């Protein structure tokens, strides 16, 4: 579960208020699109939810952790409860697909038996079972994104945050990726997908959170045509 109560974030270096008095709640098992223009505050929201930056005001709760009061040494433990997919994939270049995915389980000290069982399963889930020994540079953009998705899923996180996951893949693959995320959501994982692909959001519909100039200007569950009206 994700909950923000009257959250404001101002960057000290520039004095820009990236988020202003934002309140929102995403329940367990929900799938929500977060949309908004560049510079609207979407990336700040992601950083906030990953505890990469702190709010100047308000309360932030993710997966039962109070991120405002969370001590630094507890941050790695918290991050293990979330999976994150980035637009630029962020795969470790000198690790194979298998190693990139297994790395998350090694971080949590998972038994080798579990790693050997879980990693091939997640790779097959995203259709990368034949690419285990490939390095990221040997994969296409879509395959890299699926590898990043597999890495985000491998430790069965309660919350999956996808930051513009379709930004670097062609439209067909983008739709496939969202369908994949919907399948994962159907298994109970909460998904927060940040995107500016309005066309795609119109196609899938669902809960849409629109952020503009650091404020939530729209937050409803609606169908495709209604989104465009906003």
């Amino acid at each position: 579960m994700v909950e923000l109560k009257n959250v404001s974030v101002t960057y000290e270096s520039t004095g820009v208020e990236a988020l202003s008095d934002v309140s929102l709640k995403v329940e367990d098992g929900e799938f929500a699109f977060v949309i908004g223009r560049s510079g609207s505050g979407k990336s700040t929201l992601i950083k906030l939810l990953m505890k990469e930056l702190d709010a100047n005001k308000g309360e932030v709760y993710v997966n039962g952790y109070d991120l405002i009061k969370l001590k630094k040494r507890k941050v790695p433990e918290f991050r293990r409860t979330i999976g994150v997919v980035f637009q630029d994939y962020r795969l470790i270049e000198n690790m194979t697909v298998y190693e990139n995915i297994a790395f998350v389980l090694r971080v949590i000290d998972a038994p080798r038996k579990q790693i050997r069982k879980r990693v091939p399963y997640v790779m097959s889930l995203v259709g990368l079972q034949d690419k285990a020994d490939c390095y990221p540079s040997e994969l296409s953009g879509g395959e890299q994104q699926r590898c990043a998705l597999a890495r985000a899923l491998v430790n069965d996180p309660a919350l999956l945050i996808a930051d513009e996951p379709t930004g670097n893949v062609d439209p067909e693959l983008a739709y496939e990726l969202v369908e994949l995320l919907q399948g994962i959501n159907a298994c109970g994982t909460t998904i927060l997908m940040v995107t500016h692909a309005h066309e795609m959001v119109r196609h899938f519909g669902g809960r849409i959170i629109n952020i503009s100039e650091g404020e939530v200007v729209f937050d409803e569950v609606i169908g495709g045509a209604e989104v465009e009206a906003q």
Partner: protein
Amino acid sequence: MKLSSFRYLVGQGFDNVWKNRVMAFASFCVLLVSLLLVGISVLFYVNINAIIGGIEDKNEVIIYLLDDTSDERIGEIGETLKAMNNVSSVTLYTREEAFADLKANMSDYTEVFDSLGDDNPLPDAFRIRVADISRMSETLKATEQIAGVDYVSSPDSFVELLTETRRIITIVASAIIIALLIVSMVIISNTTRASVFSRRREISIMQSVGATKGFIRFPFFIEGMITGFLAGCFATLLTWFSYDSLVNLLGRFDVLSTIGFGNVIPYSKIGTFVTLAYVIAGSLIGAIGSVLSTRVHLKYRAANM
């Protein structure tokens, strides 16, 4: 941490040396040059010290006794000299021995000595060696105070020259070694920092999936240690080869033995020490340098998040 994780991280450290071979090679070269600079400076200083020490050991002080000193008193003076803390050896040089040596050394003047008959003009004396020549003057003053001592003959000016030379060499060598250590540490620190910086993306990914600082740092520690260890081994081989070659080359010049070159320490005597010093220093500097650079990077990232 589980044993399997420990093994994984150690393995990662080894893998990373190869995977990041360009930066690892840069660190290796910097460490190697630093170790060689400091190591060769230390060896040079140690050998100069040994050469001067050898010359010092040959220094002898002769304490001449009064003509009418009794055998009993000579014995007492000998005991007093032996009891002095800066005197390393005491040998009685009787007037008979001195006269015989004089005759042997001045065989061209046999007629003069024959004219003296049994009349021996030389006094009894003690030959002593001092342990620390920098304290020679105070030792000499103490021996002059002993009853029955006529006068003391010593190579004062030569001793002063040696003492001053050693003092200057110690100061200059220490300054050079300290300067080289500082320069080496700065270069090593910058190289490891560059190595860590080139992998900042990898580190940020590790952090985003929940890796602890220890988990991130440990492979860097192993990687740095391996690089340092290899640099230490290579420095040992280079030093061994060049040291032995130089000693053999200079040993061919007889003239050098007159200035104490014979006191140069053979590599076989210091080989174990040099190897251990290089390998331990290389491994430690490599490991600590890597960990500190990673630590600084992680702190910087935490502060700028």
